């Protein structure tokens, strides 16, 4: 994938923003680029990029998290300055909290995004209950744009059914993704699926599943 200096990953709760952010960061790191992941999730105190500290460390990816992440304080306190990170060399991937509520956290950093090459990507999953119809997904995108003060620059189709995802899961979502992309007037940047299912899929972006359930510890 081609990356702007700053990539903002937004979308509905459970669309798979965190897993995509992890994949993007590792892709850039493997290319030898400097990359910082910013966990900007002020909404959900469970399951977040802050959980991947060890993985990032082993790939030389810098991780910046809210001061109370993974603690018992569900306080949306952001104690870091994206400006100073953006002024340094390297790429930034920002993993934003779900929906428009999560996107509100972007507002205070608008001047930074105006000064740097920034792309906000909107992640969609046609299997998520309240965004199953293209117009529902489009409405949420508009809500996110309104809350953040930013415009989306592309759509990422990450349609999946968790551990029941198979070869057809992505194939059956292609028409939906096309409809959302056309209605939004935005390019479909990627169709994300496991490497073994990528064949024959346009704009396929192979992803590893890093966000796993604890009882999957012994699998593979």
């Amino acid at each position, binding site marked *: 994938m081609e990356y702007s200096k700053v990539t903002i990953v937004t979308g509905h709760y*459970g669309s798979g923003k965190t897993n995509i952010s992890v994949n993007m960061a590792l892709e850039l790191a493997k290319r030898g680029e400097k990359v910082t992941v910013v966990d900007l999730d002020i909404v959900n105190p469970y399951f977040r990029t802050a959980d991947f500290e060890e993985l990032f460390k082993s790939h030389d990816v810098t991780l910046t998290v809210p001061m109370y992440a993974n603690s018992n304080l569900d306080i949306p306190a952001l104690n870091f300055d994206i400006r100073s990170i953006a002024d340094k060399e390297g790429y930034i991937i920002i993993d934003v909290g779900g929906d428009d509520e999560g996107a509100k956290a972007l507002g205070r950093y608008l001047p930074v995004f105006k000064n740097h090459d920034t792309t906000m990507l909107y992640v969609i999953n046609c299997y998520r209950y309240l965004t199953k119809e293209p117009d529902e997904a489009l409405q949420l995108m508009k809500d996110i744009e309104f809350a953040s003060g930013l415009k989306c620059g592309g759509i990422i189709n990450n349609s999946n059914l968790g551990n029941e995802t198979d070869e057809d899961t992505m194939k059956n979502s292609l028409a939906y993704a096309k409809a959302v992309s056309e209605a939004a007037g935005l390019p479909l940047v990627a169709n994300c699926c496991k490497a073994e299912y990528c064949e024959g899929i346009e704009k396929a972006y192979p992803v590893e599943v890093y966000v796993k359930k604890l009882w999957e510890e012994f699998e593979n």
Partner: protein
Amino acid sequence: MAEKSLMKGNEALAEAAIRAGCKCFFGYPITPQTEISAYLSKRMPKVGGVFLQAESEVAAINMVYGCAGSGIRCMTSSSSPGISLKTEGISYIAGADLPCVIINVQRGGPGLGGIQPSQADYWQVTHALGHGDFHALVFAPASVQEMVDTVTKAFDLADEYRMPAVILADGLLGQMMEPVAFEDVEIKMSDASNKPWAASGHGGKRKHTIINSLYLKPDELENTVRERFARYEDVKAKHTEAVCDYCDDAETVVIAYGSTARLAKSAVEAARKEGIKAGIVRPVTLWPFPVNEINEACKNAKNVLVVEMSMGQMVEDVKLALNCSKPVEFYGRTGGIIPKPAEILAKIKEMGGKN
């Protein structure tokens, strides 16, 4: 088969309630169950129901008390500290023989504790969900799909036996995403029809009904409680549930409920791969407690291991159920720490089928 969706446990509970004919929800936000309220605040108005964020947990449960008295299906949800606040109201609801559904997405305690998953409310929900002689039905689902299926069952049995039903989840189940399907369900008793006890307006055509938990004469109160306990016997006989896997030849039987049962099952399957004869019993109902099912599953076992996300609470009911016939050991993590399958496997190995 119904179409699959990817849903968070809390959202799935909320959607399932609507599909089960729940018309009124009264709640107060608390992590890690707030998505139930958030979801219902959007969906309830669209189906002509009532979503009300009360000023406190105490207010919310008393609104449930009032609504349940009218015969309309209603629900509240909270997490551990909030359930403590609700217990007075739950006792009144039980004392007035009213049906309702209560969800507890458990977090660490005591006190404000923490927001991470826990199972430390087992004693509260099964033994002391309020003052007085009473029980609530307690279901402990282990997946998002099972939570969906449990909601309908909880409403149906609450109505049938006129008693509160609790769905006991934890932060892990509430927050995680899994694929679910909503099968069409038959809604049997969502309003006052077929509920002659309901205070639904007599219209001058019948005697008025009274919803009350106060008895001025001790013998009347004793009779009412005894009658209620006779009903409990019927619940025990017909609605006790447990799932047993790999138990037939198991030398070590692991007993765990809810999300911990999935971690434990993963450990049991890993043990089997190494040639260790381990099995697992997952109580699906915590009240009634699956006493017979546990005895049957442990028939050939040399020892029993109870795993919980607490300092050990259900382990006492397991010991009572087995009545000293087998040695029972315990492994648990608490304070919001989740026991890892590898830790459970190590404990199974340490026990090694010992007598």
